[in-house]
C-alpha cells in the first residue's frame, strides 16, 4: 500500500503558500473581528483610539497627582503596557481562534494557521492605532522625540512574531486540552507582575533580577520602551535577542502547529 502523496507533497506545499494564497481570507477575518467588536456602538471605531487614550489619562493622573511620581513615569508604564496588552490579547484570542472556528475547519480546507494569525493581526491593528494617543502622551509629559524612535519597528516586529508563535503553540494545545484557556489566564496574570511594566527593574532585589531576564517579555518591552521613554537606541545585543526571540518562537510555534494540524479535525 502506497503512502499518501496527498498528505506528503500536496499538503506541505499548501502549507508554505497557504497563508499567502489565502491573504484575502485573512483580510476578511481581521475586518470581521474589528467590525463585530465595535458593532452597535455609537462611537464605533473611535473606541480604538479612545480606549487607550482614557487608560493613559487615568495612569498619567494617578502617577502624577496621587503617587507624586516623577514627571514622566506615566509614560514609562503606558508604553510597556500597550505592547503587553497587544501580546496578552493577541495570544489569548489566538489561543481560542482554532477551536471557535471548528465548524469551518470541519467543512472547508483553509490553512488553519490563518485563524491565530487573524487574531494577532486584529490586535496588532489596535496596537498600531494606540500609538497615536501614545504620541500625545509623549508631548504632554514633555518626552523628547529623538531619532532613536526610528528603531521601534524592530522590537514591534519581534513582538508580532513572538505573539504569533505563542498563539500557534497555545492554539494547538487548546484543541486537545480545553483547560489551557483557563490556565493561560493565570499565566498572563503572573507574567504581568513578572515583567517590569508598572515598576522599574531597579526596584527588584538583586537575587530576583535573573527571573526578569529569563522572561522574554522583559526584553521585548524594554527594547520598545527605551527609545520612547529614554530617547536612546537599545544596545544592538538587546535588539538581537528580541529578533531571536521573535523568529525562534515563530519557528517553534510553526513546527508544533503543523505537527498536529492534521489531527485537529478529530477534536474541534
Amino acid at each position, binding site marked *: *500500500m*502506497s*503512502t*499518501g*502523496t*496527498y*498528505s506528503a507533497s*500536496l*499538503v506541505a*506545499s*499548501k502549507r508554505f503558500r497557504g497563508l499567502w*494564497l*489565502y*491573504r*484575502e*481570507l485573512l*483580510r*476578511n*477575518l481581521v475586518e*470581521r473581528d474589528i*467590525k*463585530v467588536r465595535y*458593532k452597535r456602538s455609537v462611537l464605533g471605531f473611535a473606541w480604538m483610539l479612545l480606549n487607550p487614550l482614557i487608560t493613559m489619562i487615568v495612569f498619567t493622573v494617578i502617577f502624577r497627582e496621587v503617587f507624586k511620581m516623577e514627571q514622566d513615569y506615566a509614560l514609562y508604564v503606558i508604553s510597556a503596557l500597550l505592547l503587553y496588552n497587544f501580546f496578552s490579547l493577541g495570544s489569548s484570542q489566538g489561543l481560542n481562534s482554532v477551536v471557535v472556528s471548528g*465548524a*469551518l*475547519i*470541519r*467543512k*472547508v*480546507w*483553509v490553512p488553519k494557521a490563518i485563524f491565530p494569525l487573524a487574531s494577532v493581526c486584529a490586535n496588532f491593528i489596535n496596537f498600531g492605532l494606540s500609538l497615536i494617543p501614545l504620541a500625545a502622551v509623549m508631548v504632554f509629559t514633555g518626552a523628547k522625540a529623538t531619532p532613536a524612535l526610528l528603531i521601534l519597528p524592530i522590537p514591534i516586529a519581534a513582538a508580532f512574531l513572538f505573539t504569533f508563535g505563542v498563539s500557534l503553540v497555545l492554539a494547538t494545545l487548546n484543541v*486537545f*486540552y*480545553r*483547560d*489551557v484557556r483557563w*490556565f493561560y489566564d493565570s499565566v498572563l496574570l503572573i507574567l504581568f507582575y513578572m515583567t517590569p511594566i508598572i515598576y522599574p527593574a531597579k526596584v527588584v532585589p538583586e537575587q530576583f533580577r535573573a527571573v526578569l531576564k529569563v522572561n522574554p517579555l522583559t526584553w521585548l518591552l524594554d527594547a520598545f520602551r527605551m527609545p520612547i521613554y529614554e530617547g536612546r537606541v537599545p544596545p544592538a545585543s538587546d535588539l538581537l535577542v528580541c529578533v531571536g526571540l521573535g523568529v525562534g518562537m515563530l519557528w517553534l510555534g510553526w513546527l508544533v502547529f503543523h505537527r498536529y494540524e*492534521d*489531527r485537529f*479535525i*478529530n*477534536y474541534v
Partner: protein
Amino acid sequence: MPMAGALTVDTRRDPAVEPAAEAAATPALAVRVEDLSVRLELQKERVMSLRESAIRFLERRPVETEEFWPVRNVSFDVRRGEVFGIVGRNGAGKSTLLKVVAGVVAPTRGDVEVIGRIAPLLELGAGFDPEMTGRENVFLYGSLLGFPRRRLLERFDHIVQFAELEEFIDVPLKNYSSGMSARLGFAVATDVDADLLIVDEALTVGDSRFQLKCLERIEVFRSKGMSILFVSHSLEQVRRLCTRALWIEGGETRGYGPVGDVLDAYEAAELDKPAAAHVQALPSDRPAEHAARRLGNAIERVQPGVYDFIDISTHDPNSVVYCERRFGGEGLGISKSQRIVDGYLALGFDAFRVDPLHAVIPESSVGLVSIMDALHFFQAPDGPERIVAQAARWARDFVFIRIPSFEDVDYLKSFGLKFFWYDWTIIPAHLRLDRLTESLRDMGLADYHVSVGKPVVSSDVPTILPASAPPDQGEYSRELHGAKPSIEFPRPVFAQIDLYIALRKFETEEWRRIVSYPF
C-alpha cells in the same frame, strides 16, 4: 496573481513514473483516488482534561482512543466533465470520502490526487457570519473558498441576482430565512471557475423552485467541462445527473461503474436487506417483528401502526408524556443525547439515540411528530427547518411544535424583566414566528395553525424573572433572584407558541379539537 487563493494542486508528475503513452490512453482525470483508507481517532470523551491526561501519563496508560476506519481501500476516478455520483446508506463513509477529496481530512493510506481548483459545497452557508450583511458575507465566504476578491467583485451582481437577494443584500444575515442563506451560499460557491464542484446533499435545502435552478446550474457546469462529485440520498437525482457512480457500504466499495449498473445493484441490495451487523435492539418486550431497529442513522421497520407518534427532544424527555396525555397512542422518543434517551426509557417509552437531523425513518411511519421546546437547539443556520422537514416526512397527520415565544422578549426587557429561559441559548433570529412561518411556506407546508399559550397579564408568575437574575436559572424564587418589579402589563405577553402543521385534510371540527387544547 495567476491563481490567487485556491486549492490548486500541481499535478505534473514525474514522467519517469508515469509513461506518456499511458497518459494519452486514459481520459483526462479530475480526481484520482487510489486504495484510500482513512482512520479517525474517536476519543471516548471528546475532550480530555489536562489532569486526566497527566494521570494517564503518570500511570503510563495510553490515551484511550478508538480506531475507526470510515473508508477502507477505496479506489475510483472522476473524469473531466463528468458528474460522478457516490451512493450508500448513512454512515457508509460517503461524507468522509468527500472530505478527503476536499482536503479537510488527511488520508491515512493511499493516494488522492485532485487536478485543479475545488469548489466545496459541503454544507451551505457554513462560513457565514450572522452579524454581517449579505454583501460582506459574499466576500467572507468567497475568500474562505479561496476565491480572489477581484473575481468576486466582478461576479458580485451576478451572484446576488442568482440568489434573488437584490433587495436584502445589505441586511445582516441573521435576519435572513434559512432558505435565503442557502441560496446565497449556493450562488457564491458555484459562481466560479472551479474545476471540481463537490455537492453533498446540498440540494435538499431551499424550495423546489430553487432546487430546480440549482440542478440547471449543475447541467451548465457539466456542459462547460467541469467535473462534479455528487452525493445524494435521492437515487433519482443521481440517476438523472451522473454518468458513473460508486457505491460504498461500511467504508468499502460495493459497486463502481456506469450509473445504471451501480444503482440497479444498490437498489436490489436495499430491497433484499440482509440482517445487519450493528443492529441496536430495543429494550422492549414488543414482538420482534414489530419492533423498530436502528442501523447507523437509519431507524427501520417503524411500521405503520406500531408507534402513533415520535417525540423529538433535546433537553427534557417529559415531552413524550405530555404528548401521550394530550394526543394519546404509543410514542417513540428520539434524541441525540444519551441522557434524554435514558430518560425516555425510564419513563417507559421506546427510544433511540440518533441525531434527528440525520435520522432516516420511513415516510409516514407515524401519525404525528412532536418537537417541544427543542427546535431552537438545532443551531445550524437551517437546522430548525431541516428538523421540521424531517418531521413532516415521518408523520401522516400533523406536526406539533412548541417553541418559547421570542416575540415578547424585547417587550419584557423594557420592564426590566425576562423569561426564565431567556439566557439558556442563543436564539436564532429566524425562529421568530414570522420568519419560521415564512420558511414553512417556502417548504410547501402552508397549512398550519398558530396558537399562543395562556396570556400572562402581570409579572407575578414564576416564569418571569428580573432581568438582573444571572443566567441558567429555573423559575422565580425571591431568595435567589431578589425582588421583582410587580407590573401589570399594558398588553398581555405570551411565554410559548404552539404550531400545528397539517399534513392532510382535516374536518374543521377534528382540526379544532387538535389545536384547541385547554392550557
